[in-house]
């Protein structure tokens, strides 16, 4: 059949108008209504007030295998986990679409009252937990986690993972902020004693530069939750407002900022540069400098120096120690855990609890994490008291002394308080406290007030 009728502009525009009108009508459909029985969004200024646990969907027979999903880096740093997953019956694990701490997929599915997965392994409480609770995406583990496991969690970690007494994150990996140094560089600089105070660090960092043992005396990650917060905790941990926000105006925070500037002056000029991945959060200049063996001291959560030292000619030159203290300070630091959350509309909740118990007590995972593998050496630690007791009673031959140093900080370490702006408050504050670090503003109190005001302004938008 010959196609002898040509399209002309009028006909095309007519058809386009019809189709466009149809699209306009479709676009004007309101977003999905709230799920019935879903909790009200929590007050952003009261982080410890959780949403009431949502009415769980009616119990239904599971229609699929247990479906956990993992943040990619967990597979990268813990290669035994995917191997273990393959051996477990009726488990279908996948990598989550969560690059850059994104949770939008999980929230989108919750709005549709569905969940592709049952468990998400990769949640850090102060980063995403409040958001996931407020959207009704996750439910507490309390009805499913065995009581002996619950009681076995280190108390401060259990507190970190709980909201209103309910455990929303099943903690898995423990990261603590501490000290590390390149012993080849410190030895060349004539430093014989591990630094225990910030004054020791400043003296040692200057000695490293003056002796030309390395270009930089120290490096640290200037993002607030990785430096300002732990340095503040080393002076005092009572630095959170009643709403759970970090109090930038607190004397301890101001002291920490002054310290950050002194340390920065003994570090690389590009210390404040954005990282190369995850929206500037990771692959930061401090990691590059330490990996390139150009810095003596390094202050960050322990898995970073271990990962960077793996690039050295001799990784055994890495030494670690407790986070330094201020004279007269509390001597605390920051820890956080990466854990698993249970999706409201997921299935297999009882099986999920069994699965998480299996994972979190798996000896090979901890051996690989602490002793290292060809793939990675993250030195992330377990969260159970019983495991440490077992190691103390009968030390495995692969367990380095360093583990005692790291875990020894847990009694004094404190987590950043959970809040809707848990991580974001530090990103909002950064342009202001950076002015002080760059010498563009000389009053530390002025910039810290600006930090506080910036977070308050953003909170007002939410209100």
């Amino acid at each position: 059949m010959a196609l002898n009728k040509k399209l002309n502009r009028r006909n095309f525009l007519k058809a386009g108008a019809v189709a466009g009108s149809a699209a306009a009508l479709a676009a004007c459909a309101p977003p999905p209504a709230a799920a019935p029985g879903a909790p009200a969004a929590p007050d952003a200024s009261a982080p410890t007030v959780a949403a009431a646990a949502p009415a769980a969907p009616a119990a239904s027979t599971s229609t699929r295998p247990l479906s956990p999903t993992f943040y990619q880096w967990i597979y990268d740093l813990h290669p035994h986990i995917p191997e273990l997953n393959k051996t477990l019956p009726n488990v279908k694990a996948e990598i989550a679409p969560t690059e850059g701490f994104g949770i939008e997929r999980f929230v989108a599915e919750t709005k549709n009252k569905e969940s592709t997965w049952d468990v998400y392994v990769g949640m850090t409480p102060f980063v995403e937990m409040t958001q996931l609770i407020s959207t009704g995406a996750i439910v507490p583990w309390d009805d499913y986690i065995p009581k002996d496991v619950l009681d076995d969690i280190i108390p401060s970690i259990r507190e970190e993972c709980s909201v209103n007494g309910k455990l929303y994150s099943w903690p898995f990996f423990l990261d603590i902020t501490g000290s590390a140094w390149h012993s080849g560089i410190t030895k060349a600089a004539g430093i014989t004693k591990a630094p225990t105070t910030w004054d020791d660090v400043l003296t040692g960092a200057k000695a490293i530069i003056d002796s030309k043992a390395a270009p930089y005396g120290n490096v640290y990650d200037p993002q607030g939750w990785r430096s300002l917060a732990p340095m503040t905790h080393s002076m005092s941990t009572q630095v959170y407002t009643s709403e759970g926000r970090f109090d930038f105006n607190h004397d301890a925070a101001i002291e920490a900022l002054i310290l950050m500037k002194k340390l920065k002056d003994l570090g690389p000029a590009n210390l404040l540069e954005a990282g190369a991945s995850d929206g500037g959060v990771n692959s930061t200049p401090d990691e590059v400098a330490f990996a390139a063996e150009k810095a003596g001291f390094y202050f960050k959560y322990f898995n970073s120096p271990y990962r960077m030292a793996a690039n050295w000619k001799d990784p055994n030159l890495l030494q670690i120690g407790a986070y330094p203290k201020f004279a007269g300070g509390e001597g605390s630091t920051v820890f956080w855990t990466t854990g698993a959350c249970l999706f409201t509309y997921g299935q297999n909740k009882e099986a999920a609890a069994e699965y998480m118990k299996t994972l979190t007590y798996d000896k090979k995972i901890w051996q690989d994490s602490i002793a290292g593998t060809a793939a990675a050496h993250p030195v992330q630690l377990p969260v159970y008291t019983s495991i440490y007791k077992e190691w103390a009673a009968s030390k495995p031959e692969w367990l380095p002394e360093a583990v005692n140093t790291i875990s020894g900080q847990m009694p004094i370490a404190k987590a950043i308080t959970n809040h809707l702006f848990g991580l974001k408050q530090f990103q909002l504050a950064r342009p202001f406290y950076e002015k002080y670090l760059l010498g563009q503003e000389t009053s530390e109190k002025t910039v810290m007030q600006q930090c506080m005001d910036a977070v308050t302004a953003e909170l007002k938008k939410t209100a």
Partner: protein
Amino acid sequence: MAAISTRATRQSRLSASLQHWGNWVFLIPSAIFFLGYMIYPILRTLWLSFTDYRYLRQGPANFVGLQNFQYALSDPLVLIGLQRALQFTLVFLPGMIFLPLILAVMVDRVTVRGLATFYRVILLIPAVIPGPMIFVMWRLLYNYEIGPINYILVDVLGIFTKANAPQWVGNPSLVIPAVAVFQWWWGLGYHTMFFLAGLAAIPKDLYEAARIDGANEWQVFWGITIPRLRPIMAILVVLRFGTAMAVIDEYLLFGGFNRGLPTYTWTVYMYDLAFQTGEWLQGYAAAIGWLGAIGMLIITATLLYIFRNRDNN
């Protein structure tokens, strides 16, 4: 007889209609894609911009009229963000036009066919490399500690010391030119092909006539080549203005979510509001997007007017 004739007429009309509508069938896949991925999202964000929709808040969105737009017009970050994007565009556009133009003129002069083809292939290599690989590569090139650029400047040429080496990503004065340079490199081959096509369409006898009349190369370039390439330049300026103002991936790679940096433009602010901050204020973010889009449309219309065809016939 009349009945038969009417029936025959009706049948031929039906047959013609079927033939006519048969043409539309071939448009359906493109139409679905166009409507689903272009029209629907645009209209959806328009609707969102008039609501207080927050992604992390449960409950339906409420209509708030122009409130989001009013708030956006008084939000300093919106104005600063648009200014920053415009600054980048003003740095980026001239290089994106004139560098490919000069290269095209040079390649067009190559008379050896094989060599000309070789040059064209080399120029197109950046265009076929996947975007993420380009970002990773240039981020490494610009790396302060281990990047090859600083290695050459500091260790080989000794122009800088380690202390004052350029911070291509960290220095607010350098980061915008750094992004512009890698964007020029990335688009060089693609835009050069545009100009080469334009140059091929210029009648050679114009150049011969001009040279016979005593015109030198500069006069030939400005008097013949540039005016004849004007339509292509217009297309590229308008297209690249839009893409330059809408850049986001590169800014996130080079500056993250630091609001103090020149890479925190209106697009990054929109993304930050919609997917990172607080309860994810997507209604407000949509309003910012529409304000930016309207501003860009006005400038685009102005550019089209500037580059309008001035021929009399």
